[in-house]
């Protein structure tokens, strides 16, 4: 029993050490050792934005970053905090490999609208009106 205890403690210490000294080992899941609670994130972010409301904290799309969904000034956006909780990152996170703006994807995911509430009577229809994928386009004629 004691032995198991010791092993657990040793592993925890090792994981913490490797994360804080910047020697993360390949495929190690550091989110197992590090935690960030909602109210903790709220406190960290409040320093910079008194109106911030933390909606959700999750393990981010990249290693070593938490993704925190916040609501501020009527808009929902993600910001990121690193595992040691020393830095906040707010801006576009872009995946080189996938050639994709991950932050923009999160923003549209967070700010989904209810499509059934958009009237379509005035809309011009391009394609088969009964097609499975209905895309509503708001456009300017100029």
């Amino acid at each position, binding site marked *: 029993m004691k032995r198991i205890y010791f092993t657990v403690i040793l592993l925890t210490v090792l994981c913490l050490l490797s994360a804080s000294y910047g020697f993360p080992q390949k495929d190690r899941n550091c989110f197992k050792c590090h935690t960030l609670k909602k109210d903790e994130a709220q406190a960290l972010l409040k320093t910079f934005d008194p109106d911030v409301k933390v909606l959700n904290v999750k393990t981010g799309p990249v290693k070593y970053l938490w993704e925190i969904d916040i609501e501020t000034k*009527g*808009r929902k956006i993600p910001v990121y905090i690193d595992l040691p909780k020393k830095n906040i990152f707010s801006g576009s996170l872009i995946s080189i490999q996938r050639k994709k703006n991950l932050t923009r994807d999160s923003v*549209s*995911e967070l*700010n*989904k*609208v*209810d*499509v059934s509430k*958009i*009237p*379509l*009577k*005035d*809309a*011009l*229809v*391009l*394609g*088969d*009106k*009964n*097609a*499975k*994928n*209905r*895309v*509503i*386009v*708001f*456009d*300017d*004629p*100029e």
Partner: protein
Amino acid sequence: MKKLVAERKDVVFYIKMSPLKMHPGAYEKSKTIVCEKSMKLLEDAYEKKPLPSPKCKTSAVDENVKLTEKLGITSAPALVLPDGRVSTGYRDANAMKALIDKK
């Protein structure tokens, strides 16, 4: 959009006219297009051809402007995808396909 619907029969676009305030002529043009519900007129407008004055009274354009403000849409074109995601800015056919298929 045209290219995409030609290629993908499972996609349909519902185009709503929502003129931007920075384009002074866009409001009247939007009304003309909505009155006639004409793709041809919309294409003419894209090609910068002059459009006739609106032939009907419609509140649809004003309602669209209000709706986009409510949805936080500030630029055109804005796509509202089947699952409710909003994506703004011009996209080519492939980029639109990726958005629809969530890739």
